[in-house]
């Protein structure tokens, strides 16, 4: 165990995978310079410019070349810089990468990772703050992972690289510098297994990504003992654990940074209601962002953010039902 930042944990995990498998390589803008969050620092020196490839500002081709390279047997790590820029490569991700195995009847597979750091990061405004995880869970063919701790950043990145499915890894921009304990020998995490962060009978709280520490703190502040799940991966997601808990507590609260409307919280809520029947629950609610772009000004941005205090309020409300 060692204490380190999210970025450092991710950096080490990638380095370890690149040492293990010479077919792993990474491509994206400014990678030789270390990436914009330092998550590639030093890797070009160790692995050379053929495996840590700085690219032009050509998002369609960064993504599409990742696919071509996967079809020819390498394991590319496709760096999108931030999730918003993936919007410049959506055809490549959704109509090509996600579908290639299926539409060619299993002849080829897109064994690659798309890293797309997402979410708010102090005052980046509307075009640099989006959370798009719900979109990706809607797309057949994609695995969607969303670490919320440094250890999981490492474990999920390793799992993503070794997976034969295309895996989208949503790293929370706001947590790159957050610290946590990371095992010396990080094992790849299985997809679809939540981490239970707290236990209690009052309610079942589900969250992921940047909201993980916020929810943990908010639940503590509420003083109410709840089951808290950090999903870690959104597709597949740990429906079994969440439904079992909700059956016991009878109360579900899903918290995420993304816009509430058509966010992944809707899917979690809907599945739990479908699984237990509405009568099996006393409360089922979501806490997310209003359906508005993210504003620049600090107090305005804060008004859109999930805070521990808002989580605590919601926990109290749900627990009281």
């Amino acid at each position, binding site marked *: 165990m060692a204490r380190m930042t999210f970025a450092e944990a991710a950096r080490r995990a990638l380095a370890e995978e690149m040492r293990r498998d010479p*077919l792993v390589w990474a491509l994206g803008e400014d990678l030789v310079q270390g990436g914009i969050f330092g998550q590639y620092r030093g890797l070009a020196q160790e692995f050379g410019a053929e495996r840590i490839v700085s690219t032009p500002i*050509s998002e369609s081709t960064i993504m*599409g070349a990742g696919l071509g390279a*996967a079809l020819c047997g*390498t394991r590319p790590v496709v760096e999108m810089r931030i999730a918003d820029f993936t919007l410049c490569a959506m055809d490549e991700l959704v109509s090509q990468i996600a579908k290639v195995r299926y539409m060619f*009847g299993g*002849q080829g597979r897109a064994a690659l990772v798309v890293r797309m750091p997402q979410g708010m990061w102090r005052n980046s405004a509307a075009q640099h703050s989006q959370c798009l995880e719900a979109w990706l869970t809607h797309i057949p063919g994609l*695995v969607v992972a969303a670490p919320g701790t440094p250890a999981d950043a490492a474990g999920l990145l390793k799992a993503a690289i070794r997976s034969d499915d295309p895996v989208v890894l949503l790293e929370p921009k706001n947590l790159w510098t957050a610290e946590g304990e990371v095992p010396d020998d990080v094992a790849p995490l299985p997809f679809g297994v939540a981490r239970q962060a707290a236990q209690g009978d009052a309610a079942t709280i589900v969250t992921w990504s940047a909201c993980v520490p916020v929810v943990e703190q908010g639940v503590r502040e509420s003083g109410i003992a709840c089951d808290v799940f950090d999903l870690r991966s959104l*597709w597949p997601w740990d429906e079994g654990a969440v439904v079992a808990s909700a059956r016991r507590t009878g109360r579900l609260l899903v918290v995420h940074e993304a816009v509430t409307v058509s966010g992944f919280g809707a899917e979690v809520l809907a599945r739990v209601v479908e699984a237990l029947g509405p009568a099996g629950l006393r409360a089922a609610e979501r806490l997310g962002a209003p359906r508005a772009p993210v504003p620049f000004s600090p107090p305005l941005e804060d008004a859109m953010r999930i805070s521990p205090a808002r989580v605590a309020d919601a926990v109290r409300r749900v627990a009281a039902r």
Partner: protein
Amino acid sequence: MAGASNETARRIAMLRDMARIRAFEREAVAAMRAGEAPGVVHPSIGQEGVAVGVCANLRRADRITSTHRGHGHAIAKGADAGAMMLELHGRAGGCCGGKGGSMHIADFTVGMLGANGVVGAGIPIACGAAQAIRLKQEEAIVACFFGDGAVNRGPFLEGMNWAALYRLPVLFVCEDNGFAAFTRNSAVTAGGGPAVRAEACGVPATVVDGEDVLAVDGAAADLVARIRAGGGPQFLHAKCYRWEGHTGTDAAAYRPAEEAAAARDRDCIGRLRAALEAAGVAATEIAAIEADAEAEMASHRAAAMAAAWPDLGAAFSDVQDSGAPAWPA
């Protein structure tokens, strides 16, 4: 005369491939019109010389990426035409298990990495394939086919720059049939055309008469040799004409009938036939090749109509390993 007869044999092989592509597509269009092959078919009849002239210079280990109009590329690269015909009919045994259809024809066993329903989408894929080939130190190149319409999409620019920058082993082949769907492409394209655009991004370009398969073959041989020698990407702009409409149901009313008729007079197959006859190949031998091609494809079509539908489970397989869909209740 071993050289000459080798050369004649090579030309006869090209004629056979062109005849097979044409016969395949004639059957495919007929099957589509008869309601036997579902969905939409984009025939490349008249353009066979490009696919064949290029692929004659490729090896099995080489890869190609293709377009919505991809039957010819697939057959020229050596794909199994029977499995393709099954695929067009949505039947079990189709090269994509019936899940792709005409627009997603593919045969990875011969390096055919897939047709594509999105114009220009093969360009970035080809670039990445070439990067993987380099990383794995394989001896292979990638040929990337696309239409003249694709030169107006962003990935065209990105891919040219990318391939030139990393000096990738890619042969870009622009099949310029003059049309993008129902619009004459010159009416929506400014500047000096595909070759000029490629060169502006650092990819050397060659223009060729795509209706002359020997010219295509000669140009491709030269470019492929340069690429194999480590010379970086090359661009081949092949001018041709699409005899049929955009799809099997498009009557192409947007263009003068004489124009299409004139293209038929420039037939790539007819020209190679004439060249072979002039070189002393018997007309009967050529006729037999063409008849064989027609018989082969007619039998593939009959076999497809007789074949079983895919198992319904195929609808839910090969999506993904983690989080695969369950068979619905």
